[in-house]
């Protein structure tokens, strides 16, 4: 299966659910397990929320772009913003590191993203924005399901 999509939305928190739903629909044809779906959804939610709150400070004139590509059973997702950017990416990716402790951010976003993907890449430059790219391969559908489904 090969497919491709792009979605652009304003940096408002309602759109966290929009990003999750759209990208879940995009991979639905792969018949993923419930656990695969919920991990994939979580990663999207983390990256989209970061773009909205850290990249743009919830300024609705900021636009978040999501691109997804499906090749066989592997999906590649890119979530990018042209917001504030990150000065030290290695530091930002440490567990519990957050620049917004007063907003009850846990600082676990990147740690969760790394754990639930096969490959996570973060590119960022202060003042020009952040791009998070991840890949996830969905397990093959068991033979029994394929013949009956």
């Amino acid at each position, binding site marked *: 299966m090969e497919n491709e999509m792009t979605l652009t939305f304003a940096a408002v*928190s*309602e759109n*966290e*659910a929009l990003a*999750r739903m759209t990208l879940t629909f995009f991979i639905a044809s792969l018949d993923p397990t419930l*656990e695969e779906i*919920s*991990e994939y*959804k*979580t990663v999207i*939610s*983390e990256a989209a*929320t970061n773009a*909205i*709150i850290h990249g743009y400070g919830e300024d609705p004139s900021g636009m978040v772009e999501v691109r997804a590509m499906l090749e066989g059973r592997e999906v590649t997702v890119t979530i990018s913003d042209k917001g504030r950017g990150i000065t030290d990416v290695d530091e930002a990716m440490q*567990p519990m590191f957050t620049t917004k402790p007063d*907003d*009850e*951010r*846990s600082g*676990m*976003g990147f*740690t*969760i993203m790394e*754990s*639930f993907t096969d490959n996570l890449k973060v590119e960022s430059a202060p003042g020009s924005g952040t791009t998070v790219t991840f890949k996830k391969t969905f397990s093959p559908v068991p033979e029994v399901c394929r013949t009956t489904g």
Partner: protein
Amino acid sequence: MEQMIEMLEGGFVLVRPAGELDHHSADEIRRTVSHLLYGGAISGIIWDLGSLQFMDSAGIGLILGRMRDLRTVDGGTVILNPSSTMRKMFEMSGLGDHLLDGTATDAIDKLGGILHGK
């Protein structure tokens, strides 16, 4: 965000969020629970996540924030029935000791044990 909050005996609060818990929906539940915490004698919070369809790290921040509030009253926290994805996130965040599969009564037993230093 749909949520159900119940006061149990012994000053324990049972919070049962439903639907999807993300940064967008966390605020409302934070307000409700914080209100209760500031208002009365609370000895612990039981988060029953069995009806929650989705949670990201906003849920971790929400629970850690309330644990901080509870520290002043020495209150405990139990996280009931998380999905396996949620369980992994709590374990990564160092909250593994608070997880429990069971009923609110099991959670109260666990909290009683914690509070009495067992």
